[in-house]
């Protein structure tokens, strides 16, 4: 995957974020995108995780709050780290 960007609106400001990874889930039938604004706060970068309906497309993102979905995100991060 190349350097893909997603531009989001944070408050009134347009921020260009780097897309870090994407994946899908056949359990939830959603796709997920993780991106970062590369801002480092207290030595940590923010990763934003959003889900979207693959039917609708990435134009409309939703927050990921379900525990099982978050577990899945953690699994993905581990997989990426270990691969």
């Amino acid at each position: 995957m190349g350097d893909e960007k997603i531009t989001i609106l944070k408050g009134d400001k347009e921020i260009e974020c780097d897309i870090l990874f994407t994946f899908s889930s056949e359990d939830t039938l959603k796709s997920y995108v993780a991106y970062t604004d590369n801002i480092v706060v207290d030595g940590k970068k923010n990763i934003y995780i959003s889900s979207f309906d693959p039917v609708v497309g990435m134009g409309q993102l939703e927050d990921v709050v379900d525990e099982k979905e978050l577990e899945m995100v953690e699994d993905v991060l581990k997989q990426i780290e270990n691969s």
Partner: protein
Amino acid sequence: MNKEKEIRDSIKKSQKELEHLKEEEEILYQEKKNMPLSSFYRELGIIERHRKDEEQKIKESEELLCKLKNQNNDYTLNNNYSIDKFRYLLERIDELKRLINDSNEESYHEEQQNKQLPAVVDSNSLMLPALKEEEVKQLPSVRNFELPKVVDTKPKIEQKRNRGLISIIEEITKDVPLKVSDGKRYKASHIKVAKRFKDELSSGNYLYNIVHFVPNVIKVPFKLLTKITNKILYSKKAKKRIETIKERVNNLSDEDLIIIYKEYRSGRIIQERFPTGLNIILEEKMRNFVLNKVARLNSEIEKKYIDIFGTIGELNSINDILKKSISTEEREKLINYKNQLIKGKALEIKDIRDKYKEANSYLSGGIHGFSEDMRAAATKMSYVGKRFSKEHDLDLVLLQKEASLERDEIEAINEGNDEKAIYSFVEMESLLSSNTEIKNSIFGKKTVGKKYYNPLAEELNYSPDPFIRDIFTSIAITSAIVSAINVISNDVKIREIVDENNKQVNDINYYNKEKIAEINEYGHEIVSKRGTMINGMKAQNRTSILASANELERRALDKSAEKYGGWAIETDIYHKYDHKAHEIYNNFYNDTRNSLRDITAKYSSGNISDAEAISLISGVSNDTQKKFISITEDCLETLTKYAKEHPKFDLSAVKKSMQYLVNHPNAIGKMNKAMVRVEDIGSQISDVDVQQLIPLHDIPNSMKTTLFAAASSTLLAGNVMSTLQRKYGYGNKVTKLVDEYNYNLAKEENYKIK
């Protein structure tokens, strides 16, 4: 004797010393708190060393004593002993050795029935006559003779089980009634990572926070999810090479194939890095090879099942007779017959279980296979009715029963108890079978039972959930609808025709104000629930409906035109419009078809996955979906105009159908979100009164032309796929999916697709 006494005295002395050391140790422990720790441990160590010394002395003395005893236990020979008797003794000892060795190999049952172990030589009881000197010299050295170890004569069942899988499951789930949704962990697939992030993560230079945030997205990369896969394209030369290899692989012996099967797995494949073409050929051959083996095993299993179940019938009959008053002779004969009947059945049952395991191990080997099996089971694709199969919470009572029967069967096999083995086996099979239920549903047959009884090894279905095809279908429908609506609403020429029509009938005020208001209200509801509309349209997947509806509509319109006059002019215009609309519709049909065809071509050739296909299709319909709401409003406006201006046009049919759509607002939403509780959806859809959908025939042609574009879209997809298959020889995966979907819908609603 003196020596012996000496040794015994030495043992006694050591034993006394040990008692003394024990007392010293007790005193030491009592004094522990009054002395430094180092002193305590030093003293304890001394006592320990002395104890070990004394114990060693006792051991050595006892061994010595034993040796002395053995030496004194020579065979005392008296003068009456003859060499023949002694040789007879040796022969009996040899026989004993032989029999003991043989009993380790033969079956336990035969041993019990046919043989008796000879008496074991008891050296203490045997008194042999004395030999003459010259005869003594000829005797073999008896002292060096050792009887062979008597081994356990019970049958050697390899890997003797004390309990089985179900007992283990029972134990780990004791008093914990697991629910369907407990412990489910969602699995991610199609993971794509930005290289920079991967490197960053591996470097460990940064820590990360997962942040919850719902942004307003301004711009996204459209082709983010495009995956590049390598398609194997054979040149002519390459094709020849492949064919040659294929032929050679097909000529490999079974022994060679087994070697490949066992050794070319997992890490070895990665290590060797053979070309993909070769791996594909080998995989295909392995699949055939393994499936043939499984088929043979299944055939053997089948025969044994027939035998066992045949036996149980007869066994039951015999047992019934034995309960009655019969003569002793008859009873004896019957019991003998029964014993012959059931002889060896425990082993046969064990063989069934072993062959089943063997067949299964062929079908899914290794941890990868195991994981794949788990995944395949989770998708429920291997069950009748696939994803519509019902899931159940863990039934502990059923599990208990199953575990108990499993234990009985294992016990029976281990004991070699044929009758018990048969009954346990049959009861277990019955339990599994009786808890298997295949029900008819609107989606065809589906598994609803708590078990899925299948005594033969079966390859699991590893294909993904067919729900994907439903999304594909609904997207196809949506895109077709919106395309057509868009054209009709926005095309200038059409507008001109409509306006002309309207001008000429503006003096006709035969309309139903109330009805229109109601329709408008429903129309607004529909706008806010666009998904519901899609669901309704999805149900209208019938070209026959479209065809007949068209016909009905035209006839109705023509008749009313004749009756009310003035409409005769409109009739021409109407037909002009109608013709134009169809022309435009057909153009858009083609455009949509081409777009879909490109995507489905990639999908059916395996270049893109299901999720990617959806994403691309959503790209085709993405913009149009967003416009759908506004376009629906336009459509309503058109409908309202027609309703207002068309003489005596009955909108009640429209009302009914819209009412249905409004009453089921969540249906398509749920389907699009991949319903978990498919039964809910199933029951919702089953509540649909097909009659409610029929009135959609009667709505004005413009609405039909637009909304009913969806009616043929699934067939459109099917037609496209059929064409592709014929023309390009693609795999028929998608064709089958779409055809099956159509067929099931047609079946449940008793419509035939023409």
